[in-house]
């Protein structure tokens, strides 16, 4: 009987990818909820990791007619002490009853792993990012050059000496160009030779050798090779992201959550563009301090509000640790807009003189309570200050936000700014 043995391992994988996409599409709202929840619990830096999410099975349930209850009969193995007519207490004899706890659990909650891309995609979707922006985030924009072999043409500066010499040597050997010592040897032999006939023969031979070596150049234009370079998209190596936040008592949890989402988005954006992203957290009340993420978002603090203290702190950190020529500096400030009146001038000065010149991007996010309409009534002191600065030409992105979906427009400015910068550079 013929037997076929087939190696299927090389078949393209991902056969059930389409089913998976269908599943995710169907479970979108559930998965999105789970992603939202997971990303709230996560540190900013972990937002890009894929990961396990748990969704309620309710919406994804596949119902069947199932029977339950009633009188049950079962035959079990492993009788040790029972005889016919014994009664077993129901509570005591649990083991026979709940035989499949694993299945029971998996029925009401469903855990599975999302890949990085799926996770980020859903995360961005949740922020209602337009597709265009998503594509931009995914794009790497700056270009670098990279060695890519050799070419026959190029600029003299790019001549590859070793490769050229190697080729020349190969050609000389192939064409049997007489070597220098060969000629010298022959000349010495002519010198030493006494017999006329033999001498004439040697001279003739020397002539041919010399002629040949003249015909075959030491280095031919054909041998010359140039190093070839290709431009490749290359992320600019590193960026630092400053998160500045007012943590005085007037900032509520909702406001901090908005701020956190904004920072996350900025981080995602930077991470896609730069290989290495550092985050510096500076929180301030009437004085500023650099803290870790946990303290930044959740640590208690109280006091007045002096924005200049945070800017001063940022300026110092930049001077000490992040040389603007090595680092792309991004800063994002979140605040409810309160600032002590006397601080305005100093803040403006610090910002225009010290901070903005070294920053790629400075965003100010004024966060408000959910559905906060009172917030439109009058501009806060910080907002009016920044507005004044912007009108006088400072490159500031600023936005008032009270709902998650309003966060993205801040980024709109960021993309626009880059586009116009590129257009200016192009012609």
């Amino acid at each position: 009987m013929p037997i076929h043995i087939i190696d299927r391992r090389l078949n393209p994988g991902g056969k059930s990818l389409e089913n998976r996409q269908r599943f995710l599409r169907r479970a979108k709202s559930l998965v999105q909820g789970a992603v939202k929840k997971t990303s709230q619990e996560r540190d900013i830096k972990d937002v890009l990791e894929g990961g396990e999410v748990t969704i309620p099975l309710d919406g994804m349930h596949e119902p069947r007619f199932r029977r339950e209850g009633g009188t049950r009969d079962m035959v079990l193995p492993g009788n040790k002490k029972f005889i016919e007519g014994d009664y077993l207490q129901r509570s005591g004899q649990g083991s026979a009853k709940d035989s499949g706890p694993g299945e029971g659990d998996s029925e009401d909650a469903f855990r599975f792993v999302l890949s990085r891309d799926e996770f980020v995609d859903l995360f961005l979707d949740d922020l209602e990012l337009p597709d265009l922006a998503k594509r931009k985030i995914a794009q790497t924009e700056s270009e670098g050059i990279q060695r890519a072999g050799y070419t026959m043409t190029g600029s003299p500066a790019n001549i590859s000496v070793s490769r050229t010499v190697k080729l020349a040597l190969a050609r000389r050997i192939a064409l049997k160009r007489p070597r220098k010592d060969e000629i010298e040897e022959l000349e010495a032999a002519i010198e030493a030779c006494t017999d006329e006939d033999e001498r004439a023969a040697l001279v003739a031979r020397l002539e041919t050798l010399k002629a040949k070596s003249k015909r075959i150049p030491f280095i031919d234009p054909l041998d010359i090779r140039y190093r070839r370079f290709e431009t490749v998209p290359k992320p600019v190596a590193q960026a630092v992201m400053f998160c500045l936040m007012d943590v005085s008592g007037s900032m509520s949890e909702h406001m901090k959550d908005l701020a956190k989402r904004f920072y996350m988005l900025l981080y995602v954006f930077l991470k896609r563009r730069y290989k290495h992203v550092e985050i510096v957290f500076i929180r301030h009340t009437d004085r500023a301090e650099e803290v870790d993420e946990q303290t930044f978002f959740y640590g208690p603090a109280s006091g007045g509000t002096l924005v200049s203290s945070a800017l001063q702190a940022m300026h110092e950190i930049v001077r000490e640790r992040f040389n603007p020529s090595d680092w792309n500096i991004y800063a994002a400030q979140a605040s409810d807009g309160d600032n002590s009146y006397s601080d305005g001038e100093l803040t403006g000065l610090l910002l225009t003189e010290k901070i903005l010149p070294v920053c790629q991007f400075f965003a100010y996010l004024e966060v408000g309570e959910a559905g906060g309409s009172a917030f439109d009534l009058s501009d806060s002191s910080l907002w009016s200050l920044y507005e004044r600065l912007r009108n006088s030409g400072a490159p500031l992105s600023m936005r008032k936000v009270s709902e998650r979906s309003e966060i993205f427009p801040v980024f709109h400015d960021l993309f626009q700014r880059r586009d116009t910068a590129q257009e200016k550079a192009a012609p």
Partner: protein
Amino acid sequence: MKERLFEGADWDFHTLQRITDACEEVALKDLGLDVYPNQIEVITAEQMLDAYSSVGMPLFYKHWSFGKHFAFHEASYRKGLMGLAYEIVINSSPCISYLMEENTATMQTLVIAHAAFGHNHFFKNNYLFKQWTDADGILDYLDFAKNYVMQCEERYGRIEVERTLDAAHALMSHGIDRYPGKKKLDLRAEEKRAGRRRQHEEEVFNDLWRTVPKGAAKSRSTLSIERRRKLLGLPQENLLYFLEKSAPRLAPWQRELLRIVRHIAQYFYPQSQTKVMNEGTATYVHYRIMTKLHEQGRISDGNFLEFLGSHTNVVFQPEFDDPRFSGFNPYALGFAVMQDIERIVTNPENEDREWFPDIAGKGDVMGVLRDVWANYRDESFIGQFLSPKLMRHFRMFHLHDDPEERAGIRVDAIHDERGFRRVRRELARQHDVGFIDANIEVVDVDLSGDRRLILHHHVIKGSQLNETDAKRVLQHLADLWTYDVALIEVDANDKVLREYVVSPRPIAAAVA
């Protein structure tokens, strides 16, 4: 002594070929098996997961629920909660066995003996498989189904198709003909017929017919109830079949989708009835083949010990108070009964002669086993061949749990002279799909009135339907029927225990 098939754990495709040839020699000559041609495919873990999510079939139509299962299996596999099967075998001709690439050479031998000869013989010879499945046509039919679903999605939209399939899947367990009488499935012809039906409809389509005035509708009320039920083929327990034939407002393609789901459910129906026998047969066959190969010196002692290790794990039966216990292990039970049959046939005791007069001491082990494999299913197999010795060995006992009984769960019978027959009958019943699945049938349609579809659930031993699930399934049913659906739960005395009525959803709401 013959030449070793392999040394150590490594294998290549030549090794597989030698192993298969050696197994085939033992299977055909010594055991007298009769198998479909074999096709052996080596796959990776990811491909195995793929196969899991499409019920083991190499090709299947696309549906989100398979993606869900894949995600679930993948998550538990990654966490290490679940190992993967060593093999998957498909009841088709040629019989396809998937082997995992990371199996050792010994495991590959085990798996080839198990799947390519054990399961294969069972598929080809068991009466249920012969009656209900078409091994030659299944792969072609699945291919047709896959393409058909894809075409439907293109023509009528993914959401519409998904809605129909969701509903069909919910009713899948009630889309089966349980009793023969209708002719055996011929899936190839089925595929052609589907094509011809569509073609015919397209050819004879004439829009003018729409405009022809219709005569006065015949008064249906004159039909007696009996006559009406007969015309509709009622009572009907195959809900999918009934909907396909009689649902008033389904589009032809929707009927075809129901038909596809129904055929696939029917294809798997024998497997659910023969878990113990199927696995028992395969385990018994691999055990015999491996032992023989070892006797012949084709497998070294070390490798044979490795085999015994995994074989013991496969046939391990935890006791009821063990945390690992989750019911009877079909491998353990099936293998034990078959080995016991071997013992009874060759070396019976007095008790066996009394219990099994037909086979005790008959001598021809393989003849008896081949007959058993061909003519029984789990329920009748256990009911017939579970011996007192084996009941004592497993120390089986029967519990009767009546919620009304205050004193607790009663031990109804144990493995003693008084209890043997009752324990055996009860265990056989546990393996009877007729008792496992709810008995639901369409009993009537009020055609002259509001077209309400009426179903009965015949409640056995007070076990009613889970309410949330029942409502959801009925919702799907109502969506297909497009009029109200009523499900009445009645007990053996026709007393109504509970009544569900569900109305179809408007389509827009269903899509959301």
